[in-house]
């Protein structure tokens, strides 16, 4: 069910959304030279105490009240351990949270990247008040997507208009694929 990296990251992005973030920065570093894919999600949400951070990867830690288990972080941490990677959470109450996860790119169990455009569309769609910066990097190239720029261009038209959302999905995927092809 969590067949690609994008789906794992979507869980983490959703946590940021539910932590009342106003700005979320999502960085993917896809490096062949270092044989490593690093992903980080940084938000300015309500943050967590050090006690909460320690318990973060327990399935029985969740911020929600509708059920008692939360698996997003536990799954991602498990994945990084399984794929020769690292996992780190830094957080401060009132300031925000940063989640960093990496996997070995060539490792046999490392899942494919998945559809980044789709998760970005889904995040934007969750709450139009939140702004996102998505930064995708390879060894030689990079692409930056910023919802603030998009909203400026749209000048009053909602970013939630379905046609705009679909354009964002395709645009992000197109740019990411272009960079990947450049890489050869």
């Amino acid at each position: 069910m969590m067949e690609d990296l994008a789906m794992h990251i979507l869980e983490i992005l959703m946590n940021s959304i539910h932590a009342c973030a106003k700005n979320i920065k999502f960085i993917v570093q896809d490096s062949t030279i270092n044989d490593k894919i690093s992903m980080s999600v940084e938000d300015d949400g309500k943050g967590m105490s050090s006690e909460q951070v320690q318990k973060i990867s327990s399935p029985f830690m969740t911020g929600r009240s509708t059920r008692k288990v939360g698996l997003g972080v536990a799954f991602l941490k498990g994945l990084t351990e399984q794929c020769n990677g690292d996992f780190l959470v830094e957080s401060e109450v009132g300031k925000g949270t940063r989640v960093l996860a990496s996997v070995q790119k060539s490792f046999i169990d490392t899942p494919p990247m998945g559809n980044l455009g789709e998760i970005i569309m889904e995040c934007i769609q969750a709450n139009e008040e939140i702004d996102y910066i998505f930064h995708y990097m390879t060894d030689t190239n990079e692409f930056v997507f910023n919802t603030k720029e998009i909203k400026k261009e749209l000048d009053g038209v909602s970013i939630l208009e379905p046609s705009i959302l679909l354009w964002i999905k395709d645009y992000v995927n197109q740019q990411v694929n272009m960079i990947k092809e450049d890489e050869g």
Partner: protein
Amino acid sequence: MKSLEDLKKMREEALKKVEMREGDKEYRVVVGMATCGIAAGARPVLNRLVEETAEKNYNCAVTQTGCIGMCVYEPIVEVYGKDGEHTTYVKVTPDMATEILEKHIGQGEIIEEYTVEAARSGQGE
């Protein structure tokens, strides 16, 4: 090739659509997008709802919610009308989502067989 230039044209088109709809959107279509929903297949459902709404200009806003505590029935799609009344559709597939838009949003007809009430009575709860 898509570029940020496209946005200007898309903005004009979106404005025209908004005018055609005349005023506020009549319905709110809400998809459960917590881990349980996503694991059960909410993403293709959400994508279908956005695509169909873009194409057919349905009079609804497509939004998301977290876990509502009925994980076993995910993917869940709730349709809220202007007067606050709402219908909960359960175990929704992309094709069911298309049908919900067509019948419920398009024609104002609730599809009883897809509702949580129907699912519960079917299981003898």
